[in-house]
């Protein structure tokens, strides 16, 4: 019954203004290291359709509409050069990426000027690499970031005690 679906292949975000779109690209490409894959451009029809449906589009025909950046073969983040202002507290809490080694990832992110948090940013606890860090209730090491559009991003390293890994390997 689950056979038709192979897996999660991408997640997509509206970025807001063209300046925010550039900040989002900087975050996902230059900070997280995802590889530019392809872009699609706006045309008049696309812009009209979005505006009629109540979406903000500041870009003009011929400007970049969508940028796909590759996490690993077959998995992507899709960024839309439009949308906003973002309002309210909505359903999606975060997207989580798996990492091989969370300490190395955190060191690299801090070197690149990215704020790294122990829990969601709203809890206000910066990640302190000098303190011993224990796995979460699920047995995995985690840390949190916030992208320039305000989306919570989680990084997770599975351990031998990870409930996620136990489930995957038990299949």
């Amino acid at each position, binding site marked *: 019954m689950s056979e038709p679906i192979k*897996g*999660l*292949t991408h997640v997509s975000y509206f970025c807001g203004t063209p300046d925010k779109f550039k900040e989002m690209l900087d975050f996902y490409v230059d900070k997280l290291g995802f590889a530019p894959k392809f872009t699609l451009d706006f045309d008049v029809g696309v812009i009209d359709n979005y505006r009629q449906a109540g979406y903000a589009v500041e870009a003009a025909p011929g400007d970049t509409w969508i940028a796909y950046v590759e996490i690993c073969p077959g998995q992507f983040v899709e960024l839309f050069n439009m949308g906003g202002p973002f309002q309210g507290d909505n359903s999606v809490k975060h997207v989580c990426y798996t990492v091989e080694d969370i300490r190395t990832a955190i060191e690299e992110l801090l070197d690149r000027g990215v704020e790294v948090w122990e829990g969601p940013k709203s809890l206000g606890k910066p990640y302190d690499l000098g303190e011993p860090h224990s796995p979460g209730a699920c047995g995995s090491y985690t840390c949190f970031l916030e992208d320039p559009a305000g989306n919570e991003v989680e990084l997770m390293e599975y351990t031998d005690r990870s*409930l996620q890994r136990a489930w995957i390997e038990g299949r």
Partner: protein
Amino acid sequence: MNITGIGHIGIRCNSLEETFEFYTKGLGGEKAFELCDEDGVPYLTYIAMPGGQFVELFHENYTGDNKPQKRSFVHICLEVEDFAKAVRQLQANGVKVTSGGDGSPLLEEPFEERTPDRCGSLCAFVTDPEGNDVELMQFTENSKQIKGGKFHV
């Protein structure tokens, strides 16, 4: 950076039971485990999707109306092996399949003759009970996701 892939997406639920049914009976995920508080009350349900990734359902409400015009999150996308077969399977599971996401027209037959989107892939959408769109995508020989393409920003 040693990021290896998408691990999960975490969703807060105003309709927890319906959303659980959607991702399990509807999309074919399986309940993997729950995390509970000190009193043994679950606060997070992990659903394993095919392929080893997860959907986390937080037993936690949100106050916004979750309209796509107001949020940054657009959709998650699931890769399918056979587009028409997947659409029929999901319909048989009681899931409404649309051409463009929440509020758009239902996808029409013949599913085998669906025209690829501008990215070269076959696409359709389902929407979870919270209003989060989930795209279905079958890659083709022309998919830019596989072949790549010009990148200018």
